[in-house]
């Protein structure tokens, strides 16, 4: 028997391990390390809420203080996942209410949360401090009132970009007068007006407030009142950035910003009146993160403002910035790491701005630290992509959306295979890739050959045959999430690479050519995958077996098929046929 350290020594050593990957590795060493680790794990991250059940989690980790859960697949952001699909936090909250009385943090992404869930959270956890709801839905401002009223030590309330039914702004007034613990408050997604005096008093009595993201209803004239009471702010999201042009409003604003010596991040800027942008000039050189993606300001005001921010590391902006603005950015912001350019008019085929591939090439040339890109544009060329790849081999996230599906290289009219091929070949650390434009199976061959670190891949309107999908599934060793829409990928590649799917978190395929028969076969052969068929037009067995399913979502799980599916979702497993007769009888329970 090998000598071992006493348990409390091991526990102390493990306390320095915070990353899941390290803790998971440690728990594999031996039985006693597994036990010590599981009893001391305080934070858990579950990337797919259906991959495991609350009971299993609680049994293994009895003393958790922070939980992070993700629900719906990413394509839910673009309305590809029908309403009612799932992602309910309810069973988790109910189980944790009993098992984790000392729970402090809950972070949810793309989950359905109800007011009852929020009430239960607010009443079950005495030390509750952090609630983050990103892209969630299903709750109203009444639910927020419970959180405000009952969570005595609340430090962080972040509503992300959730869809909240806004009944009134009154919920904010439920924060008791003795609540002084807030560090971060993000209500930017809410529509209705909160009581400004309640907000002002709340801000004034929370000396540790570092992040404040207001909603659009907070008027610009009142912003100085808040800034003066919170000069320690590090991140500010303004409300509507518009007011009548009055010199006293401007001077109040300037003076207030002058006092914000710690400010590093700015966002908000709805309804921008450009004349008020210079009021922030005093803080521009401190700013490292700037989100102007709701700001409808145009050049020259826009580029003038951005150029003031010489220390910018992250910029989110609309395509109003245009190529000329991006060239100025490349010259002024040498620390830039992340750039996101969103379309001001996504549905206009022509576009009314001069934003082309040139802007992105310029930034890739001028900004040596650029590693993360999300770019919407209307034309692209292989030459530009090759240039970007050669300029920035340190790229780790590259998401390009050419607005027109299947758009070729606008110079040569060829597919963009060579361009994206250059990206994966040169950028050896690439973790995430989203592609668009005209793409053949050849690009997938490049990806399978070179993209060995790639973890997430998004494909739309691309490829010619199953070979494309086969290249990706057989070649991308680190692949965790694959999402595909409107591609001619069918059964063969999927079934030939069935075991690969157990090494990934999930696969999404919609409007492809995967047949119902293949889904059944996959589900029956792979018991540790949930193979979910989503067919809104009717049960998949109402047509022949080779009929393609509308949408397919496959994910690994140790919790078995889920029990909360709506009538248009079927899990393929051994009991598939009996499941069908139950479903057609009117799935009402």
């Amino acid at each position, binding site marked *: 028997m090998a000598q071992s350290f006493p348990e409390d020594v091991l526990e102390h050593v493990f306390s320095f391990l915070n990353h899941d990957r390290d803790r998971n590795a440690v728990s594999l060493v031996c039985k006693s390390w597994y036990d010590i680790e599981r009893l001391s794990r305080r934070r858990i991250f579950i990337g797919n809420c259906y991959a495991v059940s609350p009971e299993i989690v609680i049994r293994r980790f009895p003393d958790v203080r922070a939980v992070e859960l993700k629900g719906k697949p990413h394509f839910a952001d673009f309305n590809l996942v029908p*309403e009612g699909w799932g992602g309910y936090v309810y069973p988790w909250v109910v189980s944790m209410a009993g098992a984790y009385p000392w729970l402090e943090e809950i972070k949810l992404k793309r989950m359905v949360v109800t007011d009852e869930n929020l009430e239960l959270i607010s009443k079950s956890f005495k030390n509750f401090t952090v609630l983050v709801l990103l892209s969630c839905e299903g709750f109203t401002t009444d639910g927020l009132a419970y959180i405000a009223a009952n969570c005595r030590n609340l430090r962080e309330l972040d509503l992300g970009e959730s869809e909240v039914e806004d009944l009134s702004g009154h919920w904010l007034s439920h924060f008791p007068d003795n609540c002084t613990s807030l560090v971060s408050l993000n209500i930017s997604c809410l529509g209705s007006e909160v009581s400004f005096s309640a907000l002002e008093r709340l801000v004034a009595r929370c000396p540790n407030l570092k992040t404040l993201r207001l909603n659009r209803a907070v008027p610009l004239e009142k912003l100085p009142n808040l800034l003066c009471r919170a000069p320690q702010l590090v991140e500010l999201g303004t409300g509507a950035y518009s007011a009548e042009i009055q010199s006293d409003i401007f001077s109040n604003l300037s003076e207030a910003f002058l006092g914000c010596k710690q400010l590093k991040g700015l966002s908000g800027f709805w309804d921008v009146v450009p004349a008020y942008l210079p009021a922030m000039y005093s803080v521009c050189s401190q700013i490292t993160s700037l989100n102007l993606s709701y700001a409808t300001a145009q050049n020259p005001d826009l580029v003038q403002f951005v150029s003031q921010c010489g220390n910018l590391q992250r910029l989110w902006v609309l395509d109003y910035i245009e190529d000329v603005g991006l060239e100025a950015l490349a010259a002024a912001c040498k620390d830039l790491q992340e750039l996101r350019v969103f379309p001001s008019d996504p549905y206009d085929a022509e576009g009314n701005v001069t934003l082309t591939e040139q802007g992105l090439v310029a930034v890739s040339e001028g900004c040596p630290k650029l590693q993360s890109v999300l770019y919407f544009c209307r034309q692209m060329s292989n030459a530009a992509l090759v240039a970007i790849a050669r300029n920035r081999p340190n790229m780790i996230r590259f998401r390009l*959306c050419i607005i027109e599906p299947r758009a070729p290289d606008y110079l040569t009219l060829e597919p963009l295979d060579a361009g994206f091929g250059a990206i994966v070949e040169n950028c050896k650390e690439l973790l995430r890739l989203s592609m668009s434009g005209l793409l053949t199976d050849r690009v997938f061959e490049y990806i399978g050959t070179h993209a060995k670190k790639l973890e997430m891949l998004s494909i739309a309107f691309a490829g010619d045959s199953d070979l494309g999908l086969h290249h990706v599934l057989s070649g991308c060793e680190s692949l965790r999430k694959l999402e595909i829409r409107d591609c001619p990928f069918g059964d063969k590649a999927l079934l030939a690479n069935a075991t690969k799917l157990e090494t990934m978190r999930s696969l999404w395929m919609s409007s492809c*050519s995967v047949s119902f028969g293949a889904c059944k076969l996959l589900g029956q052969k792979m018991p540790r995958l949930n193979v979910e068929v989503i067919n809104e037009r009717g*049960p998949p067995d109402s047509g022949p077996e080779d009929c393609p399913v509308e949408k397919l979502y496959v994910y690994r799980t140790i919790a078995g098929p889920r029990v909360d599916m709506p009538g248009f979702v079927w899990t393929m497993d051994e009991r598939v046929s009996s499941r069908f007769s139950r479903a057609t009888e009117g799935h009402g329970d």
Partner: protein
Amino acid sequence: MRSIMGDYEETELRLGLPGAGGGGNEGETSRNSSGKRGFLETVDLNLNLNNSSDGNQVEDMKQKNPIPASTDSAKPPNKAQVVGWPPVRSFRKNVLSVQKNTTATDDNKSGGSSMAFVKVCVDGAPYLRKVDLKMYQSYQQLYDALSKMFSSFTIGNCGSQGLKDFMNESKLIDLLNGSDCVPTYEDKDGDWMLVGDVPWEMFVDSCKRIRIMKGSEAIGLAPRTVERCKNRG
């Protein structure tokens, strides 16, 4: 008593092929309902699907698959209306479209925006759905889409024909008196109205949510009914 490795098996998601690696469990019979699949089984799966060698398997894959028809239930949409493309999040789309309209006109909030999602509630169905009214150009298209969406539920005569009959004024009274369904909607003022009275564009601008009621309930759209409707929403 299960060994700790058995429990461990249950909770740990492996990152390798089934049967490869792990704590020497090849010999154990599976105690879980989701048994571990051995590697041979995996190979079987591959071979069952394609009896030829690897090279031929790859050749087979080169065959082009038919691209399925548009998944939208309305008429073939124009390019601007392909669902979820370009991939801009709803949240962002909503904010941008409202901003553009407020720069154009002061009060008109929804006119000219590119989408109008409303909740649809059908009596008897266990869950609500959402539709984008901008996807359709007429009441007929909307009824067709809704019928398809809710066709898996037995809700009396609420099939496509039932809703189409609704457009025929002379049948209106019969429908309201019978057990057929009646489409109603909540407008901007919070009132519950009968679908079909106003021009389509006006309906799209003012509709906040839709409820398809059983005809017997909809008679007179009594205040009680309206209250129940609101509470259920």
